[in-house]
């Protein structure tokens, strides 16, 4: 008996130990701030570069591996990285502001640091925060890009990172106009056509969009998946920034149009009550989904939507081809309103000791037409070069995932409509809290007024300098 107990105890302890160790292992791998070894045979990135050799180390801050793969494929691979330079990646996930907190702390210590940041990446939602400070360098005056280098980039991608005194503080390799991605099979069933031009006629403004939602519901489909799906289309079309000159929060009328539409859809069952990035939301985009469409921008279509549409995921050996899940069943159209979503900008950090190299990176990855075109052809991403994109748009380029549609053409048409004039440094916090607070309203737990109150409370917690409108 005693022996059994011992064996049992030993077994349990070892089981727990194994579980603990394996759990830690799998947790740490994706989060580790260490660079993935470059598989492209480029310069091996070093984890602990000698502190004194800061000028021989290109230190890059990012929140995911997207830029890393662009950098490896289109900068290191063509041999543009000098042999004596090491690349150090500091990758911190975005969740709960972790990336910005780490970046902020290091930027503030940049002057005294032996290991200076050379490049950091920023997103549209908080670009203004970094653009308005001296921590980011002027791309033209300090880094040395010329107007000729930048002429083919979309105006809006520059406006968003231009500070109040007119200085350009960053550049990006992608433009992110948004479209409405819909299921061809459902369109055929309900609307009688799956042709993007025809479908667009049914969705060309919000009134028509709402009418189609009724039709979808009648046939057992849902127009949208969750509460936040149409958020960006409304939020990008506000008439003034979220915060006015006196630090007073200003909720635009257009935001209430989103609230009212979503509440209406929720109560009538036109959406599936999911939240952005939730597993249910992802499932709605897959073979089992009954949802007509999703608002998605460039990156969302070829990375997120494609991945979710497969019955056998890529990680489990599934192939991205027709026959796997609903690959090929999606198509894109302009939708009721133009908008953008996301995007990553490259900034040069103040105090960087590798300015020449940073300029090379910016030139190659954001201005070089040949590189930009190749990125689009390889990844279906939409890149920030109007000449290259027009060329692909006018070619016979086809996306197999979108049933043979040339979506680059559609993006090329949508990109000039992007308006980022009302962006503020509070956008990320505002978006998060607005979506969270009104989720309670959609769920039926609070009234619209209470949800708005909760929004003010949460935002002032985040930004203590802001004030509630009187």
């Amino acid at each position, binding site marked *: 008996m005693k022996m059994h107990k011992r064996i049992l105890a030993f077994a349990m302890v070892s089981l727990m130990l194994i579980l603990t160790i394996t759990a830690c292992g799998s947790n740490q791998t994706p989060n580790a701030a260490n660079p993935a070894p470059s598989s492209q045979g480029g310069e091996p990135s070093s984890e602990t570069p000698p502190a004194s050799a800061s000028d021989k180390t290109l230190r890059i801050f990012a929140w995911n591996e997207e830029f890393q793969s662009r950098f490896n494929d289109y900068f290191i691979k063509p041999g543009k990285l000098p042999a004596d330079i090491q690349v150090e990646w500091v990758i911190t996930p975005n969740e709960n502001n972790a990336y910005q907190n780490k970046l902020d702390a290091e930027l503030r210590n940049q002057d005294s640091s032996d290991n200076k940041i050379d490049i950091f990446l920023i997103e549209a939602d908080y670009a203004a925060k970094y653009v*308005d*400070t001296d*921590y980011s360098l002027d791309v033209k005056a300090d880094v040395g890009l010329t107007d000729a280098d930048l002429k083919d980039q979309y105006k809006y991608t520059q406006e968003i990172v231009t500070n109040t005194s007119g200085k350009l503080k960053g550049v990006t390799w992608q433009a992110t106009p948004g479209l409405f991605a819909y299921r061809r099979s459902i369109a055929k069933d309900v609307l009688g056509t799956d042709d993007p031009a025809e479908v667009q006629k049914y969705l060309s403004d919000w009134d028509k969009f709402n009418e189609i939602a009724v039709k979808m519901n009648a046939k057992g489909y849902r127009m949208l998946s969750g509460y936040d799906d149409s958020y960006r289309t409304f939020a990008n079309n506000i008439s003034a920034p979220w915060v006015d000159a006196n630090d007073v929060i200003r909720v635009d009328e257009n935001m209430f149009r989103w609230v009212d539409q979503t509440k209406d859809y929720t109560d009538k069952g036109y959406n599936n009550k999911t939240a952005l990035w939730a*597993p249910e939301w992802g499932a709605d985009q897959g073979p089992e989904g009954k949802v007509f469409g999703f608002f998605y921008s460039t990156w969302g279509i070829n990375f997120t939507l494609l991945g979710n549409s497969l019955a056998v995921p890529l990680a489990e050996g599934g192939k991205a081809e027709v026959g796997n899940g609903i690959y090929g069943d999606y198509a894109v159209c302009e939708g009721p309103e133009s908008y953008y979503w996301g995007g990553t900008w490259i900034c040069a950090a103040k105090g960087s000791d590798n300015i020449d190299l940073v300029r090379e990176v910016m030139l190659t990855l954001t201005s070089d037409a040949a590189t930009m075109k190749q990125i689009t052809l390889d990844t279906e991403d939409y890149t920030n070069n109007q000449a290259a994109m027009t060329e692909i748009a006018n070619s016979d380029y086809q996306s197999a995932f979108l049933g043979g549609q040339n979506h680059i053409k559609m993006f090329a048409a949508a990109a000039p409509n992007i308006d980022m004039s009302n962006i503020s440094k509070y956008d990320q916090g505002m978006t998060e809290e607005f979506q969270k607070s009104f989720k*309670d309203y959609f769920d039926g*737990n609070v009234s619209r007024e209470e949800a708005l109150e909760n929004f003010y409370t949460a935002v002032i917690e985040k930004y203590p300098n802001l004030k509630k409108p009187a």
Partner: protein
Amino acid sequence: MDEKGSPRKKSRSISYGKWGYLFIAPFFLAYLVFSLIPLISTFYNSFFERYMVGLDLIGPTFVGLENYYSLFTQGDFSKYLSNTFIIWILGFVPQLLVSLLLAAWFTDLRLRLRASGFFKTVIYMPNLIMAAAFSMLFYTIFADAGPVNSVLMSMGMESPYRFLANIGSTRGLIALMNFLMWYGNTTILLMAAIMGIDPSLFEAAQIDGASSPQIFRQVTLPLIKPILIYVMITSLIGGIQMFDVPQILTNGNGNPNRTSMTLVMYLNKHLFSENFGMGGAVSVILFLISAVLSLIVFYSFTGKMQRGGNKA
């Protein structure tokens, strides 16, 4: 040993006292560095306005008690306080009852439970899981399209029950997790207390014809009172500090409508803007609440026990 020894003897005696001080010094040093200094600086910081707006630091400006004032007038401090207590009580009451029952069973000599070592291990195991992982697990299990809803739907429910969109079920889930995580720990503590009771007292009670419930109420309960107080105070402090379980389960929002936002989650909200002034004020109030409640619990129990102890 003898203090009044002869002068000669005294000079030769070795003072072991200094070794004692040397050995306890690390603790006091650690306490000073990691507890006392932060505690004082928290108090100090709570009188300042200091936060980040983007990359710009606002302050620090001395504002006196303004942080405390705005905490009680602007924030919903009392709401978060009552949330914390409701969730704590929801979890603590069943925890104490179940633990008492289990402890009584495991220590009952007449029941002769088989494999009690196995059960003790099993009930303790949830405590070994990281609270965050446990919370993630519940988040997945009780999701709208999670396994619990699949079971409910297969049993004939029309639409999934949205656990995390309803106040009662969200609070209930947090309480359930706290219960599951801590009842094993409490059981072990109570068992130790019960096993420390002189068995002759139980025998005497049996010979006098007392029934099992009578023995439990009249003998066991009064004698494990010190441990009950300990359990009560530690659980109370743990309850006031409740953070990781609701934070992960509700994604840091305390939804729905901030009804499951605990005080420490509220404190955490101020970290976003490095608002050390407000954060300090919340911490100081938390400290005071914990101290006052602990004292109340302690004196209300020990007062009675002291009298009982004197009689015995």
